[in-house]
């Protein structure tokens, strides 16, 4: 029949709804329960995943289907809230932005908590030292006068562009906890605090640049940066962290930031 022939011809074309191939991925997760374990230990899990899944999906599958005690932070799951920074295959990444297809799944995927902050449980660390440094650099606009002629503090495109890169920070701590200086010296302000200081130091509307430059001229300030570029490579927002730190160093030396006049 002509109809059957047509159907056969159709069958030869690739099916639009071919089943998506799932594969088994091994995750090796560094576990720690302060109520039971004296030391953290590695535990492995096999999970069925698709190439389009993220590491966060793998963690969800483990928590929901295999071991409900697995503990990690996540909120938005879309790379905005900055809750799920963790060390994936030895590099700081957001679990919600790391696709399985971008990892070598012929080998197990190692997942552990970020380094340099006190480990609380499994993949959760105490972020307080990190936020304490952030608060210390006064991450808010400081201006003495009221805005002229209306409601806004006018800023040119070039002036806004000057600090655009450092406005992207989501405070996930991927940069600070990738820094070898921070691992050994928790007193160091760390890349994230300096990035957020940069955001206000180089803002033409702000008047407290000299205060922040003084804070960062401290022994534990910008001069502890050893330009390892781990922070720049870890940042899930693509902020050029080391460049921002270098600009703050230059501003400390010059005594004031170089902000476009117009």
């Amino acid at each position: 029949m002509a109809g059957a022939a047509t159907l056969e011809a159709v069958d030869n074309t690739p099916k639009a709804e071919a089943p998506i191939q799932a594969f088994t991925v091994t995750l090796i997760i560094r576990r720690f329960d302060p109520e039971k374990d004296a030391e953290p230990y590695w535990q492995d899990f096999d999970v069925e995943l698709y190439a389009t899944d993220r590491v966060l999906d793998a963690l969800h599958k483990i928590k929901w289907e295999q071991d409900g005690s697995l503990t990690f932070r996540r909120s938005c799951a879309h790379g905005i809230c900055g809750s799920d920074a963790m060390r994936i295959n030895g590099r700081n990444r957001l679990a919600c932005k790391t696709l399985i297809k971008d990892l070598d799944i012929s080998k197990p995927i190692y997942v552990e908590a970020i380094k340099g902050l006190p480990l609380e449980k499994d993949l959760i660390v105490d972020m307080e030292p990190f936020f304490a440094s952030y608060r210390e650099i006064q991450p808010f606009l400081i201006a003495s006068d009221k805005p002229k002629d209306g409601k806004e503090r006018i800023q040119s495109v070039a002036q806004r562009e000057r600090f655009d890169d450092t406005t992207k920070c989501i405070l996930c701590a991927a940069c600070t906890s990738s820094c070898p200086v921070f691992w050994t010296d928790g007193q160091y302000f760390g890349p994230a605090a300096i990035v957020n200081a940069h955001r206000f130091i180089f803002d033409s509307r702000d008047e407290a640049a000299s205060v922040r430059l003084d804070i960062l001229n401290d022994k534990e300030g910008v001069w502890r940066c050893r330009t390892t570029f781990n922070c720049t490579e870890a940042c899930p927002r693509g902020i050029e962290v080391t460049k921002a730190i270098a600009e703050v160093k230059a501003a400390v030396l010059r005594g004031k930031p170089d902000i476009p006049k117009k």
Partner: protein
Amino acid sequence: MTSQAAPPESPPASVPEPRKRRLPAGTLYRGREGMWSWVLHRITGTAIFFFLLVHILDTSLIRISPEAYDAVIGTYKTPIMGLGEVALVAAIGLHALNGLRIICIDMFSWGPKAQRVMFWVAIGLWIVLLIGFVPRHLMHVFGGE
């Protein structure tokens, strides 16, 4: 009540033990050129410090007694020290070239963007300089002049 000779076939339905693994503490952080250049800078810097410490001590001997100075410097003329000098020149060369790279990173606006290229340029220059130095030096050490 019945007594069974054989134990029940199925194991008790408990949660299986977690598949724990014996692995070293955490994984090594997988930094890239920037981190490894920093590690090399640290190692070479520390090594050069200890060389300078010894070097200042042995050189200052000449103020005390030229004979003692000659005796100490004479003990350096061995093949092992000759190889040590290769290591010293290599360490100083790497530290110096990477130091220039770090100055560029901190002082020029294009520095941080070009850091990876600059690292490989520094390694390239270092190898070229060593190719110029090492064969000539080893000829002196083992040539028996």
